[in-house]
């Protein structure tokens, strides 16, 4: 059963110039993105900076106004509402169902509030009585493996990893249906990152958490996600179950991304093919397939004709004219 269905989502920013501030162009930050998240599933949205992955997550949270497209969310079983077109007033009661885990555990917690109050705040806002709030905070601290005494201390008493646990407890306070996590472990040290990754895996098991996991680190993504959507310049180029995507990518950009990650094994050194050039500018994307100037397999058709995201097999979608004939290298 689907919890979230995003269809042909677009977020464009006008570029204005001149005395009259006429629109002279558009930054197509997100340009026709479709995907779904099933109940209990973690979908990773990956890509390099400027690909639009964070913009997509902010559209889902309605932190941004959508240019066009639909964001259908099952607030009640089988009853979808379109977050993209819903008036602001009607979005507010739905907010409790979609919660956010932030990247920076130092910036996202109010330093003047006690940890217990930080975690209880969403409960308070939603009118949960004080006694119930106290019990729920106890429960949540236990859930994220923090000592009960943490509630009466300030965030500065804790390390980055512990603060991220507090942020996760706050996100889970209202039993949200969907958690949007934007780079939740990328600001953490390796030893702490491992603890948080394990915690997220535990929470997926214990609570059947549904999650949109926005990340640039393909190693972290392989550990935590069920499926992966790869974005390039505002569009999804490939969607697949995690293991299939890593073992046998279908899009040349996915292949390039996987090849670029340095594996923690010196015996694998020096065998990788490195994609040339820079990520294309979303204000001025190349015609045809946006990846064609960097693609070693590009043919004439790729320079003029933009490929659509097309189903290939069992849950796999790819947007590449040559997907069926290419035999791309994965990692194993």
């Amino acid at each position, binding site marked *: 059963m689907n919890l979230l269905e995003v269809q042909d989502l677009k977020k464009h920013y006008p570029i204005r110039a001149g005395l009259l501030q006429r629109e002279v162009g558009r930054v197509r930050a997100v340009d026709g993105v479709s995907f779904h998240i099933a109940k209990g599933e973690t979908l990773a949205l990956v890509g390099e900076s400027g690909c639009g992955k964070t913009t997509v997550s902010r559209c889902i949270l309605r932190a941004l106004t959508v240019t066009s497209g639909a964001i259908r969310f099952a607030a009640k079983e089988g009853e979808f509402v379109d977050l993209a077109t819903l008036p602001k007033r009607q979005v507010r009661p739905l907010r409790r169902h979609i919660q956010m885990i932030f990247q920076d555990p130092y910036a996202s917690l109010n330093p003047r509030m006690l940890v217990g109050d930080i975690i209880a705040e969403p409960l308070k806002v939603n009118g949960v009585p004080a006694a119930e709030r106290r019990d729920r905070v106890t429960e949540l601290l236990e859930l994220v493996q923090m000592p009960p005494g943490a509630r009466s201390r300030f965030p500065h008493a804790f390390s980055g990893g512990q603060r991220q646990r507090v942020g996760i407890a706050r996100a889970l306070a209202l039993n949200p249906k969907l958690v949007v996590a934007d780079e939740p472990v990328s600001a953490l040290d390796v030893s702490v990152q*491992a603890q948080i990754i394990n915690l997220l895996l535990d929470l*997926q098991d214990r609570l059947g958490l549904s999650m949109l996991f926005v990340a640039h680190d393909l190693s972290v993504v*392989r550990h935590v996600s069920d499926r992966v959507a790869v974005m390039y310049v505002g569009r999804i180029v490939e969607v697949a179950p*995690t293991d299939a995507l890593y073992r046998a990518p279908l899009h040349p950009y996915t292949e390039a991304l996987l090849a670029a990650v340095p594996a923690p094994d*010196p015996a694998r050194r020096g065998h990788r093919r490195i994609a040339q050039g820079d990520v294309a500018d979303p204000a001025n994307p190349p015609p045809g397939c946006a990846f064609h100037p960097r693609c070693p397999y590009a043919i004439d058709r790729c320079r003029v004709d933009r490929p659509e995201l097309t189903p290939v097999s069992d849950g796999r979608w790819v947007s590449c004219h040559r997907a069926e004939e290419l035999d791309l290298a994965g*990692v*194993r």
Partner: protein
Amino acid sequence: MRQIPMVDRVALAIRDLAVQFESEQGIVRALDGVSFDLHAGRTLGVVGESGCGKSVTARSILRLVDRPGRITAGRMLLDPATPDEIDLAALDPESRKMRDVRGGRIGLIFQEPMTALSVHYTVGNQIIEAVRQHSDISAAEARNRAIELLREVGIPRPETRIESYPFELSGGLRQRVGIAMALAGDPEIVIADEPTTALDVTTQAQILSLLQRLQQEKNIALMLITHDMGVIAEMADDVAVMYLGRVVEFAPVHEIFATPRHPYTRALLRAVPSILATPRQRLSTIGGAVPHPGSRPSGCPFHPRCPEQLGALCSEQVPKPVPAGRSGASCFKAEREHEAVA
């Protein structure tokens, strides 16, 4: 412990380096007796988590540690055991000699290239100035040299790019300019402090391969500071693993990954997420977090988090540091295991 075969010339020898920061809350020992060698034509990877002292080491070598920090002990010998030997620790940071070393004999590449670049001047002006600071050539010659440097670091159309301002360039191109700046003084040693951490993964791969090529062509002694074990595996010849201001293990890269000696190295390797993971694979974790350098534990600094600690020995006594030029671990358990084998 055994001798690492060293055919290359030692370009810089760090011995027992100690750096302290004094504040009202007390003294923080940021570096606590660090020793290692940098060799011409080799890459030393320095790896560790935040607060381990890897960046302070880089700043100390260049004498860029600001008050209240100061070097309290140790030597940093350029051209050790030759008639030209200079101890950087003994130089005045503002002296002519030190300024010649900084940016001249030792180049620095930052995590964020804008640290080294000004927004107000063109890329060309800045590289030309850096070139002229370290050699006595005409403006026209320096301009040609700047174009040459931009070409060397793989910037397309350097004759026109030299007129660009840094903000007109992508992150990857900017870091290439940062590398060109570091090379402007024709250094024999380059220190790169997390040079690819701020970059996208495909750009990171390009920059790492550029650094590799330049190092081989110019026989540079490269000190590469990173938190990323993948980058270490890809780039380093030798590895220094740091924890709370100490080198806890030093070894050739293959030994670090195949037969790590220090429990911290072992734990760190098991904690790294891998692109080769199986679905939903959990990671081994290290309990707790890195303590603040101001509240350094007694004995071995890693003992409160160490799954293999030997009780009072580890909590009361400090294990001997790894001597420079050798591979080994600063660890009582590793010492015992070594004795048992010998």
